[in-house]
């Protein structure tokens, strides 16, 4: 029963107020892309046992999508940030690296 803090309204929302949206920072491939690009966009998922970046919507609250860095093995949440980000904020990345020195990074 996760708690994630919505970066828009500041509510520490419990999981039942949120809807999950799986992997964050996917780049969309539309017409003109190769079969591989489109396949990877749609299906190839990171699914790490460890630090993961993912989408959540504060569905029962302010309705905004946001992104979270969370460990899938311990459920520790390192931070949340707005969905209008093309990659994780640098301070969050630094915080995760400090906590998880073995982490191979966001890419």
């Amino acid at each position, binding site marked *: *029963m996760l708690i994630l803090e919505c970066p828009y309204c500041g509510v520490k929302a419990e999981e039942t107020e949120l809807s999950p*949206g799986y992997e964050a920072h996917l780049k969309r491939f539309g017409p003109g892309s190769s079969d591989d690009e*489109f396949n990877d966009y749609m299906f190839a998922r990171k699914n790490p046992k460890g630090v993961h970046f993912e989408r959540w919507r504060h569905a029962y609250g302010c309705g905004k999508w946001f992104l979270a860095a969370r460990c899938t093995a311990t459920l520790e949440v390192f931070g949340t940030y707005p969905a209008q980000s093309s990659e994780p904020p640098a301070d969050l990345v630094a915080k995760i690296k400090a906590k998880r020195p073995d982490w191979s990074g966001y890419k």
Partner: protein
Amino acid sequence: MSTRLAKGGRLIDRTKTQGFSFNGKRMTGFAGDTLAAALLANDQMLVGRSFKYHRPRGIVASGAEEPNALVNLGSGSRLEPNQRTTTTELFAGLEAASQNHWPSLEFDVGVANNYVARFLPAGFYYKTFIHPRAAWKHVFEPIIRQSAGLGKAPKDRDADRYEQAYAFCDLLVVGGGIAGLQAALVAGRSGARVILLEQTAHWGGRAPVDGDVIDGKPAEAWVKDALQALGEMQNVTIRNRCKAAGVYDHGYVLADEKVADHTPGDGRPKHRLWRIRTGRIIAATGALERPLSFAGNDLPGVMLAGAVRDYTVNFAVSPGDRTVVVTNNDDAYRTAIALKEAGLEVPAIIDARASVTGALPAKARAMGIRVEAGRAVVKVKGGKRVTGVAIGLQAGEGAVLDEIGCDAVAMSGGWSPVVHLWSHCGGKLIWDEAQAHFRPDPKRPPTNHDGSAMVTVVGAANGALTAAAALADVAAQMGGEAKAEAVEEAAMEPVWIMPQGAGPALKMKMWLDYQNDVKVSDVQLAAREGYTSVEHTKRYTTLGMATDQGKLSNINGLAVLAQSLNEGIPQVGTTTFRPPYTPVTLGALAGEARDEIFQPLRRSPIHAWHEAQGAYMEPVGLWRRPYCYPKAGESHEQAVHREILNTRKAVGMLDASTLGKIIVKGPDAGRFLDMLYTNVMSTLPVGKCRYGLMCNEQGFLSDDGVVVRLTEDSWLCHTTSGGADRIHGWMEDWLQCEWWDWQVYTANVTEQYAQIAVAGPNARKVLEKLGGMDVSKEALPFMAFVEGHLGGLPARVHRISFSGELSYEIAVPASHGLALWQALIAAGAEFGVQPYGTEAMHVMRAEKGFIMIGDETDGTVIPQDLNLGWAISKKKADYLGKRGQERVYLARADRWKLAGFETLDGSVIPDGAYIPAAGHNPNGQRNTQGRVTSTYHSPTLGKGIAMGLIRGGLDRIGEVVEFTKMGGGTVQARVCDPVFYDKEGEKGNG
């Protein structure tokens, strides 16, 4: 015999007697009794039968760990199977009945299993009942099923109600013993928000029973003061009869409050499930005593030493007149002393330790109790109750040196911390050699959302077993100063088998799991056969899988397994602790969600009218819509046909309020809709309507509806009834996460409007009668809309048609929906207006060849499959789903495509029917070439009509194909144009 003592009993009120019954026998107890205490007070030693061998079972414990004394409590709509007598508070009129026997508790034919027990070792069923194949299902399994199970299956709907509640705190202290009270005091004084829970009705735990002295006061007085102090703190909430059942991630704790278990029928909720979110959990959950494994340790009258003490001190109940105490530790001496002080006899204390020193043994000896050191109980004598014990050397193999007559045995194999709450979210344990138990490893706690430790364990639950140690532990971990007087105790010695050299015959009589009948010999068999992982052993023998979930048996079983494998106990490890700590009533987990409030039922503004008319309603998502409006004597089918014919000939009305309505507005709204829909919406003129399709990124059709251009920069998108929230979410997803620089706002206004379709040749007349708006063909042509007032109500009227008839869809504010509906009914009376339901709508749209999301589509269909290429823009570089549709399999020419079907005999093609093709595939399955998607009897055409998908689609018009029929055979149908009615579209355009 077990009986009520004349004096004492700190928890009972002798002025209040309470009558109850057990197996129909009238008995009495006192207010404050548990059912178990009252049964013992009435000399009811035999209370049930074990699971496998149906051996007689008596009360063994005094709390939640009880494996034996489970009863069917209550009857009828209040029957509750497997109720623990040890945690059931007695109330006047309580009815209990013992379980798992036939015909009676005293005489149970199932006990036959006991006499052939040697042929039924652990896992015997895996090795037999194999041949003949049919015998398992028809012979063996039914017998096993019938003899398994415990309590009676209730038959009735639960008469009680339940509720749930949320609570929040910084610290949740679980356990109302002295450690928990002290932890709550310390935390409360710090100003933190604290909740303190105690599972029983009483505070103080074991300390008052054990006669501890805290801060110079008797424990009882200290507890009273602590409660008062806590009660005065505004930041502390205390709650008894409330059990923390499970710890979940991020500080979420489920707690089950037994609000009215002891006052059934008083109108209060039976249970309240608390959903607590806490910063940290302080588990002061105490410890549970372990049995000792000696032959016959399962006979009624053999009890845990601590339980014997509880019954004597708390309830003034003596389990026996002559109680032999058997132990490997000093604590059990307290039981002997308490019994002696109550005026009862303790013929001997059998202590497995070779050397017995220490204050408590000295006191026992001083009271004249015989202490036998280095001795073991070789065997308990008796049948349905204890008659004596045979004594031998603990170091020996079971030679009997002496026999002692007794009617009860109090045993203690040491104490195991209750580490469940620590372990539910992955807290790890370490093995404490000195006390022979697992306790929390503070270095490996369960972690919280921020990675910090989520649970702190204090007191006996942390291995600090005495009052003095427990309070010192609280002080060390949390601060505070309470101190208990230390009573010196000598070290315990682990004893896993008694006597240690016992042979196989004795081991087959040493019970580990009382309820499931798992013995020392069974665990050894599992080890011998290679089921050496502790999980394998558990599952193979069923050790710890009974309703007590191994609270008494797990450590003993684990130790036997470790010995068998010649490994250390920590190497063998434990099984996983899973919630709940003790079982939670399913009704409490379902909470308030029953009957009317089982799920939200969405009602349109006209819902009550439909119900008043006797409409037959169908669920559509969470909505309830009229399927049809049967008149007296009409079947549903007849009603549907009447409604269709009336609409086609006169005029019908449909409550379409459930249709999704989403406003999309902004400078980039047109561009956005062009990405969302397969066709172009940016070019739609203001005042016009256009049908549109939406696909997911895979390319599959997900929703459809009419889009309305409201103003230069705003559109209104209609979605399917089930689709409004989903599509609104879909729009926001793209706007927020992909095209966040586009200037577009959306608003889901589905419920703002009641929407009513008026369809049929007389539709215009009805609207004209209402008046207020020019609805002529010229002023309001097909696929246009106007805003204004209709019949005095603010309305937006669309000329759109899903029935193929001349049709208006009128949207008014929901508050006026019923008024509009009634005005239309009144105005339409002279034109023959009748309401129609969803089924008539379905048939009429099928007659017109219109697709229905969910019928023609199923998540694998693309618009091209449905001949909807006309609604897919070829000019657009991109739309959601376009790239997906370019994939090999979706672009294939031989995909199944939409066509119409007419049966040759006029019958209706069965729902779900397939069109077989010649031959079989490599897996031996019949090849197929298509299937029906919508099939109805058309009252308009007087015959069966259908739409379906078929390889080749419309290219095969005129061909006759066969559809499968339920139960065999086929029905022949000719492929045709799917538009069956008004192909030229003259009616809708009229």
